[in-house]
């Protein structure tokens, strides 16, 4: 088990952003972390990345506790934050070098060109990040997350704002990465989950409403599309598609 979330709770003032959630993720099985906006997906991911502390509960990434062994967690984790923040006045390669240096990556030049190939940044690699289109910025974000070849990847909406061609490319890349690594990703695109995820965790208003394999989920709800299951589990006032 590379990610273990155990009764995790985060309270902001009066509001429980996430409430006593538990789930696991393991290598080789891509986990889709779904939920409506404001359900607590990003909060959970931020806690796992060691960016904000939880209020109660425990979580571990790659065998290290996120509070007690935060530095070890961050060494073994590739994290793409929501909205993909980037240093816009840096050049693509410069930013990769910066991140690779922070991680003390060995054989830096070779690894950077390898990651640039993997993410399809080749033609844009000499530009400033600020001059890139949204899709390419997204790739830079993913490239920065995988440059140190981490065991665990947590990607918060890695495919938002991509055009259909880029979607396919990035999905293939994620699928490839998911074969050997533990990969958790959040998304609002249900087809994407059906295309690449094996495990699905659905969270609504801070609580987990489904935690199963994709096939198991479809079976237990006797519905064919994940979209219907998602809506029936998370829509307010029991609105249903049928």
């Amino acid at each position, binding site marked *: 088990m590379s990610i273990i979330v155990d009764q995790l709770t985060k309270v902001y003032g009066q509001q429980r952003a996430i409430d006593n959630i538990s789930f696991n993720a393991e290598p080789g099985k891509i986990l889709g972390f779904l939920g409506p906006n404001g359900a607590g997906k990003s909060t959970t991911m931020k806690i796992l990345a060691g*960016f904000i502390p939880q209020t109660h509960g425990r979580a571990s990434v790659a065998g290290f506790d996120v509070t007690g062994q935060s*530095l070890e967690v*961050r*060494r073994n984790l590739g994290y793409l*934050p929501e909205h993909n*923040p980037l240093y816009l006045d*840096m050049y693509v390669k410069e930013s990769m070098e*910066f991140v690779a240096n922070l*991680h003390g990556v060995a054989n830096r030049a070779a690894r950077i060109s390898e990651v640039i190939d993997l993410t399809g940044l080749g033609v844009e690699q000499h530009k400033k990040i600020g001059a890139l289109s949204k899709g390419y910025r997204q790739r830079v974000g993913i490239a*920065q997350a995988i440059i140190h070849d981490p065991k665990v990847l947590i990607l918060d909406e890695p495919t938002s704002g991509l055009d259909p061609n880029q979607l396919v490319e990035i999905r293939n890349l994620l699928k490839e990465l998911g074969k050997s690594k533990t990969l958790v990703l959040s998304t609002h695109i249900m087809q994407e989950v059906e295309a690449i995820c094996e495990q699905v965790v659905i969270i609504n208003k801070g609580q987990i409403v489904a935690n199963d394999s994709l096939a198991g989920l479809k079976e237990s709800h006797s519905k064919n599309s994940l979209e219907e299951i998602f809506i029936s589990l998370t829509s307010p006032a029991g609105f249903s598609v049928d």
Partner: protein
Amino acid sequence: MFTLFRKEINGYLSSLVAYITIGVFLLVMGLFLWVFPESSILDYGYATMEGLFNTAPYIFMFMIPALTMRTLSEEQKDGTFELLATRPLTDWQIVWGKYFACLLIVLLALLPTLIYYYAVYKLGATEGNIDTGAVIGSYIGLFLLGGAFVAIGLFASSVTKNQIIAFAIGVFLCFFTFIGFDSLSQLLSFRTIDSFIASLGINEHYQSVSRGVLDTRDLVYFLSFIGAFLVVTKTVLGGRKW
């Protein structure tokens, strides 16, 4: 930490920020010392650089907050702080990396003014008729003062996402800690403890170092002043309140 330090320096040198602040500093310094008749060394007629050391703190008061205002507030605003904080870097490394980068820029602004020393040295009625010891002491004092102002500026930048607010807070704190305590100590009601109050301010210690006597008390004062502001900065960053 060194990686971050280098990134910050590159950021300053590849944008206009550093050149313009250093340029403006040197321009104002040059005008005050050689052109404006009230403060010009040439009109004053004595081989002394006191003019520089009396004026520089007031220019630093505006220049340094201008230099530091973006360092942390921009990271918070763009969300790139999340990028830094989820890499294997401690909050202390982030604070120190940024601190030393700003300090180096301040040092780069100070270095060219050594030419003024050379000029005054040559212009003396008897060549070399300048109190070199006092000049060295004053430079050390000015550098320590710069260090203290950078710490204030960094703190101001950590409390807000807005650069203008960071600048305003920085200028006010620099101004207040520099001469505010002197003015307070002159209030009648504080007569018995006025020297204690004055000794809380930077000016008292700056003047003392400028005399050319490096007293450990002054050194301890500056170092603990810098340390205190950096500790608060680190605590603010650790709170992740934005």
